[in-house]
């Protein structure tokens, strides 16, 4: 796995505080296990092909089930989740879930309290970039992880730019270590 922290879109330079690189998928596993209230935000690109046999949404569903993490589907992704047998815990535009996650008073989708770990995948790179920036600057007590295969520097943690194969293997490891599917 490459250790270079370069934004995927070349000009998207974040500033002094850049995402820490996830060099081993176990980092994500540990953060999820440590989190009291994790949430997974899945965007519209998740149903598009990463390669002939890899779709992000399938990994999102498996991860959600393995670690019992609620999913928020953005855009029209509810359709894709329902097709695959998972009803998301919530659905709303990406900027709406960002706006709520930054609010320490938000009681969450189930009304029981704020989230402490938000993981993002499948949003257009530049959109995820700015939503993560909003959370970096304006949320309190929230950790963020970008689970896409591109380095997204406004997250607290992000994968580096990865090949589909490396990314896919990382997810297999995470799912395996997060629990029985």
């Amino acid at each position, binding site marked *: 796995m490459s250790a270079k922290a370069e934004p995927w879109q070349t000009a998207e330079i974040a500033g*002094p505080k850049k995402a820490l690189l996830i060099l081993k998928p176990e980092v994500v596993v540990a953060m999820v296990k440590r989190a009291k209230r994790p949430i997974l935000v899945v965007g519209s690109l998740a149903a598009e092909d990463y390669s002939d046999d890899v779709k992000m949404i399938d990994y999102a569903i498996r991860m959600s089930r393995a670690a019992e993490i609620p999913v928020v589907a953005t855009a029209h992704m*509810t359709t894709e989740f*329902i097709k695959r047998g998972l009803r998301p815990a919530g659905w709303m535009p*990406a900027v709406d879930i960002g706006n709520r996650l930054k609010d320490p008073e938000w009681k969450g989708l189930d009304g029981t309290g704020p989230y402490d770990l938000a993981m993002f995948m499948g949003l257009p*790179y*530049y*959109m995820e970039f700015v939503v993560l920036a909003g959370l970096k600057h304006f949320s309190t007590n929230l950790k963020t992880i970008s689970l896409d295969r591109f380095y997204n520097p406004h997250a607290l943690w992000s994968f580096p730019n990865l090949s589909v194969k490396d990314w896919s293997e990382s997810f297999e490891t995470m799912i395996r270590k997060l629990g029985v599917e």
Partner: protein
Amino acid sequence: MVWGASLSKKALHIKIKELKSDIAVAKDVEVSIGRIFDETWTEPVGPTPFPSITDLREWDFKLLQRYKPFYLPFCDVCCLCTFGKCDLTGDKRGACGLNMAAQQSRIVLLACCIGAATHIAHARHLVEHLMEKYGRNIPLDIGGLNIEVEAPVTRLVCGIKPEALKDLEDALDYCEEQVTHLLSATHTGQEGSNLDFESKVLHAGMVDQVGMEIADLAQISVLGLPKADPEAPLADLGFGIADISKPTILVIGHNVPSSVGIIDYLTDKGMLGEVEVVGICCTAHDITRYSSMAKIVGPISWQLRYIRSGLADLIVVDEQCIRADALVEAQKVKAPVIASSPKNCLGLENRDKNPSKEIISDLVEEKVPGVLILDPDKVGEVAVETVMAVAPKRKKFKVIPEIEEIIKAAQECNQCNECMRACPNNQPIPEAIKAAAKGDLNPLAEILESCIGCARCDSACPNDFPLHSFIVKAGEKQLWAEKFKMRVGRGAIQDVEIREVGGPIVLGDIPGVVALVGCANYPRSGKEVAEIAEEFAKRRFIVVTSGCAAMSIAMVKDEEGRTLYEKYPGSFDAGGIVNVGSCVANSHIAGAAIKIASIFAKRRLRANYEEIADYISNRVGAVGVAWGAYSQKAASIAAGVWRLGIPVIVGPHGTKYRRMLLGRKDKAEDWYVYDARTGDKVYVGPAPEHLFTAAETKEEAMVLIAKLCMRPNDTTRGRAIKLTHYVDLHKRLYSVMPDDIHLFVRNKTDIPITMKDEILKILEEKGWKERRIPDPTLLPRLIRKRGE
């Protein structure tokens, strides 16, 4: 705020050529004796004539209390002064004391000042040019007997009723003054509060609307553009519409006088038909409004592909949204350039004082790559005479490579991915190049559909391959097939149309007005705009459009070969697709909303901003959609309708404006209004839920559009119609019922009859309680005491 406030903005300015008296003879005497106002308009002056940057602050704060900013910074630093760079991460402050929220709102204000200044300067140029050429007293006429309220935005904001060209100067003076004040607030050490920056953003947007209205009023009145005509003619649009056997002039930009100069010269010389005049962006809109001889190539993104294809024998650029490298690109295809705007001189020599023959000779003999000519009539002469001489020499010389060259280059590509990483839409260019290396150009051709024409791929390529040209060549067949019809911009909405639809809109029988506006920075394809337009036209919304979006709407045909403009009427009525025109014609969209309050509801218009905005935000189910918004002008246009309480949706690239204005439907306390009948505070639900939001996909945009058209004042019948569309779209596109339906149902008669059982079940689960429908207002001063 006081009705009948004095309106003292108009200076009495006397110029005397020669004054003789017993004691002296004075020449060129100018006397200013303060400001007076022509009181021929009998409507009392409202509380806020020519509002200052703080006069509507209270109203702004009402909006901002409900629709709070969510900032989306690009980066952690501020680099605007020599204290910096300053790290503003989290709760840090810069050396000047500013925090991240204020810095982001400051950037938004800067963008809106740029946008407003651009339209206002455009208007100033047009008004001065037209007064100089045609006289100061040309009456304003944008719709004949069909329009009495000819300048709703200017009347509302400034409190004046302009009747002749010269009357527009007062409003322009005002706009320029306001932009100067607003811009000054962005200086280091001025404004420190993000909410005050946001109030100023709304002010910039408001004066921008005035500037746009002035520009379109002036050009419609003087140049004879369509006057609120629902049946404005159809123009040819597309890459393949020009007769390239003729000399071809390409005009690019937004400010039409130099293009008018070309058409006038061709007309005067009897040469119409000998030269093709084609346009890109809003100049194309306005020149086709002026002349049926002109044609439209396409939106802003078509610049490079058209220039590099060598089809233009001469290029005339005016102002706004023109590629900064237009001259460089034109030189590659040996096409001379005429720059015609003081705002976009391109480093070229000003040749206004030279004889035309000399300039033409220099261009034809390639002594210079281009010239700057600021006199529009001279542009006309030089452009036409030059193109006639240049075209036979150029022979449509192009720099689009042949297929063999592409394959050869593709075989040398080392798949570094830099092109893809530079592409705003992350297009799989490396994969397409890999296929091209094997002789398959189809993947490259597919990229053209979502290519925004920026050519960042070219710049990024370490081998200097002209990747954008590769894509254009691969997609050549589909490009040449682009032959469409667009109804040219009709201008304003007629008063009589407003009278007919005002009631159905306010009551909700017409489920909404969807304004598809803005640029072509699309996340996938311009066809998505056409899909949205048709979806809502079929649903009997009123679809209004302008600018590049109006062109994209034209670029889809049905099985019978008809475009949407041929299928749907151009009237401002349910099921219409109404192209108002270029960017500056956007003011007619805000103007229509204002006229609903003024003409249909008979609210006082004159300098009565808050009340009209309050009316619109509570009653007029309009929503703006700028699917490909990229520019600062798009930012200020949006800000202008936000202040009227009209929500705007942008595409995913719009998140880069760095701030959304989002409501929280889960916070019931944010959604109370006064009942003007009783003064009671009444919960009305999140209608509309947001003031500025971004959708990630067209499907999400469609659901949002339907939802954001709901207003507190909807009648039960109207709300049922709106809910039908919202639920139907939500179920179709999301495969589930909306999770917030209980917030929009006020009583059981709101429930669409065909969905009754399903919705009643949800209401029961949510513990829903029936509530009343108020006469909604956010302004305590509009509360009528019981019995009055």
